[in-house]
């Protein structure tokens, strides 16, 4: 992951999209201070929550903050819960780890939380074990634990990938209600553009550890400017546009242990210029006209030397006559392998 920056405001969902290995989960773990050490470390940067830089907090301060102010809804409800403790014990444990309340009071709050996330007869469920719950119910328990201390920021990392579409709809509806009603900010990580369209106000697109584009949700879908974003949108079938042939993005993402010198998307990019092979473009405001008007987190941000023009989005290729994507420089043979 390289040079990722973003702001997140209370009461709305910010989406983070990218393929496996693009750095989505690493970003969330970095915010939580949970990257495995010493294998990984945050080499540079700041994570601000309110007026504190989380990366400068001690382990102890961070531990106090996790759960209480930032919490995570993990991807896999099977692994997120301890199989040998009852669901009630796990919710109570979270509450008592951060607040000085009596067990009876913590249990009452635990039951209330399970009710909030739509678990029927919550009082009876406290003494049951995770394996006695279905996948959707387990995910609800995890959301209840994440919400136990009324965090200001909820990070949901692919919260519904393990669930069926009908149960997914229930969980997404719950997350939306909770963020709207409680004013919790949510960072929603997913590779599913349909979920992004339903849940987010703003989307960030990651590719090979870089944030390559960021814009309001409607604008990302209507007017993608990064060739990767445009390619992603053309590679998914849409129910509203049946029969349109899919245009896959050629090739496969780069291996992150030997990152390319320039833009990591250059080897797959139809818009590539010579400079793309040499230099990673900075993330800048795309609509140069309203730079001053846009708040730092707003607007349309883009990291690209040769953005996709409006009329090229539908065509899916550069329309300038005679344009050919720049080949890799001769000193660097990048394998254009088939996927």
């Amino acid at each position: 992951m390289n040079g990722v920056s973003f702001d997140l405001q209370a009461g709305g969902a910010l989406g983070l999209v990218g393929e496996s290995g693009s750095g989505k989960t690493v970003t969330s773990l970095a915010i939580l201070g949970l990257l495995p050490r010493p294998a990984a470390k945050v080499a540079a940067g700041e994570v601000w929550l309110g007026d504190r830089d989380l990366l400068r907090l001690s382990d102890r301060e961070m531990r106090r903050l996790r759960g209480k102010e930032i919490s995570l809804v993990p991807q896999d409800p099977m692994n997120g819960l301890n199989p040998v403790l009852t669901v009630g014990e796990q919710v109570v444990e979270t509450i008592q780890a951060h607040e000085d309340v009596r067990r009876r009071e913590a249990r009452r709050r635990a039951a209330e939380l399970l009710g909030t996330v739509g678990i029927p007869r919550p009082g009876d469920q406290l003494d049951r074990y995770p394996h006695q719950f279905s996948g959707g119910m387990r995910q609800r328990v995890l959301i209840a634990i994440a919400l136990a201390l009324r965090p200001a920021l909820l990070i949901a990392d692919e919260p519904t990938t393990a669930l069926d579409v009908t149960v997914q709809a229930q969980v997404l509806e719950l997350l939306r209600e909770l963020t709207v009603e409680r004013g919790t900010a949510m960072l929603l990580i997913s590779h599913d553009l349909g979920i992004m369209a339903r849940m987010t106000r703003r989307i960030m697109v990651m590719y090979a550890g870089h944030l390559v584009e960021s814009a309001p949700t409607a604008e990302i879908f209507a007017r993608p400017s990064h060739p990767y974003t445009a390619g992603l949108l053309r590679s998914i079938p849409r129910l509203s546009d049946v029969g349109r042939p899919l245009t896959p993005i050629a090739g496969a993402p780069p291996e992150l242990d030997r990152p390319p010198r320039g833009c990591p998307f250059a080897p797959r990019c139809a818009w590539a210029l010579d400079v793309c092979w040499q230099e990673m473009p900075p993330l800048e405001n795309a609509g140069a006209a309203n730079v001053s008007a846009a708040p730092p987190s707003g607007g349309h941000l883009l990291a690209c030397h040769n953005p996709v023009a409006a009329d090229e989005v539908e065509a899916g290729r550069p329309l300038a006559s005679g344009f050919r994507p720049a080949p890799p420089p001769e000193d660097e043979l990048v394998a254009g392998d088939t996927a």
Partner: protein
Amino acid sequence: MTAASPASEPVLLEVRDLSVHFPITRGTVLRRTVGHVHAVDGLSLNLATAETVGLVGESGSGKTTLGRAIVGLIRPTSGEILFRGLPLSAKGATSDRAVRSQLQMVFQDPASSLDPRWPVGASIAEPLRLNHIGTRAGRDERVSDLLEVVGLSPAHARRYPHELSGGQRQRVGLARALALKPAVIVADEAVSALDASIRAQIINLLQRLQDELRLSYLFIAHDLAVVRHLSDRVAVMYLGQIVEQADAADLYNDPRHPYTVSLLSAAPVPDPAVEARRERIVLPGDPPNPASPPAGCRFHTRCWLRKRLGDPERCAAEEPAAQLISTSHAAACHFTDEVPASAGLSAAAPPAEPAS
């Protein structure tokens, strides 16, 4: 329930009243059967030459069991599977190998269906070797051809599965399925684990292979947009039964079963404008346990339409028969006519006041 295939192509594969029940056993020393999971229960389905039938439904609905029964990996409890009009023996894959080789399966996770200790060329050649087809040199040549057919190079034959990307492994899985020149491929969530940009490559490959080799696909998936993109017809399964089947356009635009309506309404659509104006029917709860499906209509315990109609007794008492809506569209619901005409995806507005 059977809705007719398009008349232009003859029926290649016919599933007649198929049931697969798995026993539930208790006790380790004195094992006894205490019940059965009705994974597939009295199901009928046709597949024509060069046709794709999409199969959708929640996990536990029996999609995978049906697919495995068709390729002979699971023995049916009752019912028949006919291939080119002749019944497949109930004994499974060993009995009629020549016919069975015409029915192949591609799995969700090619990483776990390829032997990690074998170069992928050996995995692709395995079905040829087991069926004593060709000489060693001839098989090597066939493996090279197959790799080129699926968009890889002959040099990939010497690679091991871990050296390939997910998309490349799925191409190898397809090459192996194609080795015996099958007529039918059961693709069980074959593109579900792939990232969007790679998934499109495999979807296009599946379509190209179908055009070139006149393959028939039973395409099992939970992604409704992918199913719509690939399928000529679509069947919707709920608790071991097909509750609705129709031409893909009819099923998505004019669903007649309330379960289909709720599946379509739950599926996220990658278009913020559409998402903002749709209302969703959120089904309560999870699918019931297939070991003891509800009496009457199996969907009645979660049905929003029944609730809206004032909980008619008939749904809980009587199992609905398939209602033919047209020659190619059938739905198993007592109240197909009550499903709002605007319930499909083509209609911008969802059915009025959806129950939640």
